[in-house]
């Protein structure tokens, strides 16, 4: 099994991604992610010091729309598609007192 990523790193990343993994999944992902990162060693090893990164293939420009009022979709149409809503807002379980 590859050692490019450790079991503990997988557990940490799962917490960041808000996923709860079983022990079997942790083992599986440790191996599979290691293999994928091993394949990416060609990119990791590349000397690309002075090259500018490209995050979007097109030249990026800020796009503004005309400052004109127009109808938007009704709030209720979104709220009725949510798992829970109340008083014109999304309803969620308690947040206060949670671990961050």
């Amino acid at each position, binding site marked *: 099994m590859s050692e490019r990523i450790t079991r503990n790193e997988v557990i940490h990343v799962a917490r960041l991604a808000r996923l709860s993994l079983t022990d079997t999944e942790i083992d599986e992902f440790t191996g*599979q992610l290691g*293999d*994928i990162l091993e394949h990416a060693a060609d*990119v990791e090893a*590349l000397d690309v010091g002075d090259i500018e990164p490209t995050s979007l*293939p097109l030249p990026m420009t800020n796009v503004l729309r005309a400052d004109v009022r127009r109808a938007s979709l009704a709030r209720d149409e979104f709220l009725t598609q949510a*798992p829970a809503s109340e008083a014109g807002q999304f309803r969620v*379980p308690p947040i206060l007192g949670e671990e961050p």
Partner: protein
Amino acid sequence: MSALGVAAAVRSGEVRAVDVVEEYLARIETRNGELNAFNLVMADEARAAAAAVDACVAAGDDPGPLAGVPVALKDNMCTQGIATTCSSKILEGWEPPYDATVVARLAAAGAVAVGKTNLDEFAMGSSTENSAFGPTRNPLDTDRVPGGSSGGSAAAVAADLAAISLGSDTGGSIRQPAAFCGVVGMKPTYGAVSRYGLIAFGSSLDQIGPFSTSVADSAAVLEVIGGHDPFDSTSIDAPAFDLRSVLGRGVDGMRIGILRELSGGIGSVDGISPDVQARAAAAAEALEAAGARVQEVSVPSATLGLSAYYLVAPAEASSNLSRFDGVRFGLRVDAPTTGEMMTATRTAGFGPEVKRRIMLGTYALSAGYYDAFYGKALKVRTLMLAEFASAYEQVDLLLTPTAPTTAFRLGERTADPMTMYVNDVCTIPSNLTGHPGISVPFGVGDDGMPVGIQLLGPALSEPTIYQAAAVLEASAPHPGGKEGR
């Protein structure tokens, strides 16, 4: 009948759109149980839309260039009031409150949406086996996969359950299934088709495009769905393409390069099977015989595409899919606190491949690894853009096989993610560069399954690509793999 044939017959009043749609709905009824191409059949909506097209014709009005043409939509495109699932449990019960721009444009052109097609969950996969609703099967051999992620859309057109369909292509998800199913699949230039209402996977890579049984139908659909959309900030501010007028122009004098690194010979990535290599060589010869000047061209960084892609795409996916947290749409798994609810919802709602990519992307973006992986992958994109630009000074278009092999068997590659990922090696570079690419069927491999040939060009070279694709189509040794015809 071709999509353009249907449209011509409906517009002239020779054929009624309602009869066309009944014929297609009947075929879906017969075949979809076996193929699982559709997640949802929109029978009532399709009948109503077809009746409206006929009423338009009867009133002496023109219902549009795709009048009465049955179209299937990949189920990651929003349809107002109609379930849109991304083949994921996490969107269970969600009905979008608006139509994607491409959906609205097809309807305005008279096309009739007949259903939403199956895909790898959130478009992550190359075989349509990663669907929460079960795999789609290849209509040409139901023991084989249709490719992916737009496998349902490719299978629907190959089995004539729709005259045309739309897919999305993030790393080859239109072109590879088109190759596997023996149909034409086009990924346009990034920004040429609006992504408004396409549920995002990799926002700097995703692009919508058509599947069809002919190059002319493909061009007709792209003319309709392309063009600027103020609702997509990455939409190119240019008029829609004029494509059908170039189809008869031929390739006399056109310069076409065989892309060495993706063609299987010396200096190429491994894994391109000999029968596929032979079809690509035959395609190049056919273009040469039609007057093109063919030469070999090298783009060394093309071999880095796969690695760069499997860092960039998961990174963007991990960010895009953070919105599925049980608050605003679809599934919620209840828990005492919001944080626990989000974790429980995501854990229950996402399938294994989606979790794998979210994990990989979160890792590649996390502190300490960002520069080594994601940052470097973005620099590879710059390198590739420069090398492809210099290749396109030597030639007008590049030619490669669309996929390293023909369609493989169900279950053959599900155990090891890397064996699945290498399927995209030929298609990925043009997603990283934002360039257009088309897959055209060109004969069959040793197993009798179709082989697709890919033509690539620089940004906005769609007219040149279609011009050459029409020649390839006309010289193909097999009528395109459409079963029974």
